[in-house]
């Protein structure tokens, strides 16, 4: 009896977790009051062939990969780029968007350092940790456990081995 109850409880909890995950992972959108428009990595990356670092500046040399501002979007989107039917919708969304349409909080804890530049230098692609463009568009965010960092740093994932001393990444 007790066991069944516990199972029921755990089941409900699990469903709630999955529901929460589906609800909150909606991909990247330019959000403003009523106008919301999805940002497609597929369109910008795979189709147009823009490098990730084009918008996520800092990923090649810096510590952090940054998010583009509205100005960065407008650098290309000031004039209609195609005659696609979506362009007017995009323009009106951009017009009312905030100066920094995307805000994220890094998931790397304060006692860990992750330097994008040094990983880029070692020819580790963004996809290795962030997943494919399709996954990113579905709202996946990189979530790397220390064990995965270590496996790669030990040379078990096909990249050259790197430092495994605690104080190289922890502070």
């Amino acid at each position, binding site marked *: 009896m007790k066991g069944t109850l516990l199972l029921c409880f755990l089941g409900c909890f699990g469903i709630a977790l999955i529901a929460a995950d589906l609800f909150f992972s909606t991909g990247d959108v330019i959000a403003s009051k009523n106008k919301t428009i999805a940002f497609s990595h597929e369109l910008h990356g795979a189709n147009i062939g823009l490098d990730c670092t084009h918008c996520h500046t800092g990923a090649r040399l810096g510590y952090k990969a940054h998010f583009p501002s509205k100005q960065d979007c407008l650098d290309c989107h000031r004039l209609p780029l195609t005659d696609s039917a979506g362009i007017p919708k995009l323009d009106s969304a951009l017009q009312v968007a905030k100066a920094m349409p995307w805000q994220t909080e890094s998931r790397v804890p*304060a*006692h860990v350092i992750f330097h994008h530049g040094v990983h880029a230098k070692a020819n580790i692609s963004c996809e290795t940790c962030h997943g494919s463009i399709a996954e990113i568009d579905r709202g996946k965010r990189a979530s790397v456990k220390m064990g995965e960092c270590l496996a790669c740093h030990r040379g078990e994932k096909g990249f050259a081995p790197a430092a495994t001393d605690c104080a190289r990444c922890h502070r």
Partner: protein
Amino acid sequence: MDQSRRDFLKVASLVLGGLALWGCRRNKNFSPAPKASSDISLWKFEIKQAMRRNIPLGDLVPIKIPGPLPKFPKEINRFGMAIDLDICNGCGECILACVLENNISRVNDCEAQKGRFMHWIEMREGVPVMCSHCGDAPCEKVCPTGAAVASPDGMSAMIYPRCIGSRYCGANCPSKTRKFNYTDARAEGLSAKFNPEVPLRNRGVMEKCSLCVQRLQNDRLLAKTLGKEWRGMGVQSACAMACPKKAIVFGNWLDSESPLSQAVRGRGIYTLKSIQGLDPSVVYLVGRA
């Protein structure tokens, strides 16, 4: 008679037990958490308070110049410091710089009365004393979780999330430079994040001078990203930078170009007698050799 004596003992032990429990209470359960303040004058005041303690320095003994670490014979860097006691006048500016660089929290009045401050630098008879980053560190040998661990760059590192607060390391450190977070500084409003680069430590975690590891890490990552050999040239610890007399020199023992190697040339190199023989990376300079 017997009966009343028993009653008396009962009541007395209950009262005593109650008083003991009252004494042990966690302050925050009884009084609202004070508002956190990042007013630097509070830290300055505390440093003055700490500097009024009379902590004996003990003898200084001459040692040889630190060389490559036997644990990491292939490494080309070993960072450390030299504190020139012919120049240092014990002003304590280094303590404040270290506090602000490493977000060191203040302690409550109860701890302050016991003289237990968190500052990573302590003035002992006017001489700044911090962790010596021993090459053969006794603290690392007794840590049950590996939170106190040697770094190939010459530091004796602390990995805070691993620390379970056994305090074995503090007991085994002959120079007593490790500091334990007895109180929850954040809950008591005693900590502030002056430097976003350094995490705040939790209650129950040991801490000590890190040789400003964050500065070394940043410099190393930059050098590696640019594909340059890393020797840590140009990196300075916060205390070395803040010293108005430039008595503290930070550098790389294994690099003859390093300001550290230059500063110790021809000088007498000393360490605390208690850690003589443990191959410290942080040393004192006195007179000519």
